[in-house]
């Protein structure tokens, strides 16, 4: 699919937001799904780059992604100008399922935060009461705090303490759960492995639903190459690109 870049801006140092528009099945998007983007002219890079869908706006035919520059592909992407065309496939993968009128917790860490945005929006629309814990390494990496505040109660954590509470999101979550283990019915998370593992330990024995989004290096992005597997309670490995990226908390081995 060809989509055109309609807007781009640097949200924080090295972190870019990009809006694209064009023929895309916007209404089919589930929060947590991703697009697989061709980088370069189709010759220089044999592999596409998976980037999560941060927001979808079917009325305006707009898809928003947020990415951090970590290598050649994301560097190339950040250098594209408004008006340039991107070749994407998607929406891919298995997203977050949301329910109505529940008490939900969203936990995001760093570049794992954007995939939770569309989810937060939908949870709010569907009458959930949402707590949102966002963690960043440094104060100057913080983005989208205000945007998330529209949908719920945002708690900000930074490791350097420059903004919000100093420390990890999990300490805040743990404190709340000690107070009231039944505080949340659903927990949704995306971010670094370490954070996800810590959250999983906190909620493992609680009767909560929700899901956790994983990452792995991908080739095909559609389930054909078996490149992106992870271990779950199931006997065979699961492919993050089609069976995930969102998995049940009790299913995945982190």
């Amino acid at each position, binding site marked *: 699919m060809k989509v055109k870049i309609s807007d781009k801006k640097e949200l924080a140092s090295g972190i870019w937001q990009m809006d694209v528009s064009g023929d895309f099945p916007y209404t089919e998007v589930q929060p947590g799904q991703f697009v697989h983007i061709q980088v370069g002219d189709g010759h220089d890079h044999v592999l596409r780059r998976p980037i999560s869908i941060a927001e979808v706006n079917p009325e305006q035919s707009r898809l928003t992604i947020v990415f951090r520059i970590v290598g050649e592909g994301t560097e190339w992407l950040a250098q594209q100008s408004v008006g340039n065309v991107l070749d994407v496939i998607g929406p891919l993968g298995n997203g977050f399922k949301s329910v109505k009128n529940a008490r939900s917790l969203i936990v995001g860490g760093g570049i794992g935060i954007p995939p939770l945005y569309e989810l937060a929006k939908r949870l709010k629309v569907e009458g959930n009461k949402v707590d949102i814990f966002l963690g960043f390494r440094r104060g100057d990496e913080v983005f989208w705090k205000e945007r998330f505040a529209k949908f719920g109660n945002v708690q900000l954590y930074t490791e350097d303490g420059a903004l919000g509470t100093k420390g990890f999101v999990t300490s805040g979550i743990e404190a709340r759960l000690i107070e009231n283990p039944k505080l949340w019915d659903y927990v949704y998370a995306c971010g670094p492995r370490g954070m996800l593992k810590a959250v999983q330990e906190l909620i493992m024995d609680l009767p909560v639903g929700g899901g956790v989004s994983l990452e792995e*290096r991908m*080739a095909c992005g559609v389930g*054909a*190459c*078996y*490149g992106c597997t992870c271990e779950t309670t199931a006997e065979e490995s699961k492919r993050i690109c*089609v069976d995930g990226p969102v998995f049940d908390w009790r299913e995945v081995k982190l």
Partner: protein
Amino acid sequence: MKPNMCVDFAGLKLKNPVMPASGCFGFGREYANFYDLSKLGAIVVKATTSQPRKGNPTPRVTEVRGGMLNSIGLANPGVDRVIADELPWLQQFDIPVIVNVAGETIEEYCTVVDRICQSGLAHAIELNVSCPNVQQGGLSFGVDPKVLGELLEAVRRVCTLPLIVKLSPNVTDIVEIAKAAEDAGADGLSLINTLIGMKIDINRRRPVLARGSGGLSGPAIKPVAIHMVYQVAKAVKIPILGIGGINTAEDVIEFVMAGAAAVEVGTANFTNPFACPEIIADLEKYMSKRGIKNLEEIRGCAL
């Protein structure tokens, strides 16, 4: 004038010479969401082993200049489920199904080949001999003509379908290996499988792939593949499936001129999920434009 795209390969009637390479197309289901698989010349499915295999730890894919490395490690659901779930589903498409078979012992290869042949759900076997031979210290079956000969003689006895042997390029003399395969009764050869390579993450100071090394595929290996096809085409009579870095119709022509009868497309499916049907359409255009009536006309013309 419309060219005739049909190709005969080791007894298989292909409606065109382009098929996806093993491991790069699963069992076809995923790409069937993109296009009608009946457009393909054939389909080569993921390596199948006697038992289900999870493969190697992740990360198991990464990109390098002009290609990629993979250390999937033969992850597959095992021959029982392949026969129960995957091959029946593929019968709806009007194309030959080639099952890529891997193993760690001669017995394992024979069991799997036998099961597949008995199932009546496949049209040919592609024997992946790049696998480590556990009975002989882990060296790949495909690097020693004697070991390969023994394997093929055993497989030949149970194999009632055309037997295509997929060779490893990580050898001193590919011609010697190819001849051994021909002598042991192979009906066709596939070349090449991946070269062995490695990438180191200099920040983490470790290989990127969890397994360390992986198979190099993509445009970077095309010159090596062309050369091996060229050398082997000069030395054997059985037909060759050319593989390695094919991205365009021109690449297919290059392999055919080097002696290949048909080709497999691997990594390009990841770059562009429509790679195979686009290459097939472009190939037809190329042939019409140059007045090439069929590929047989130019096969091996550069030899």
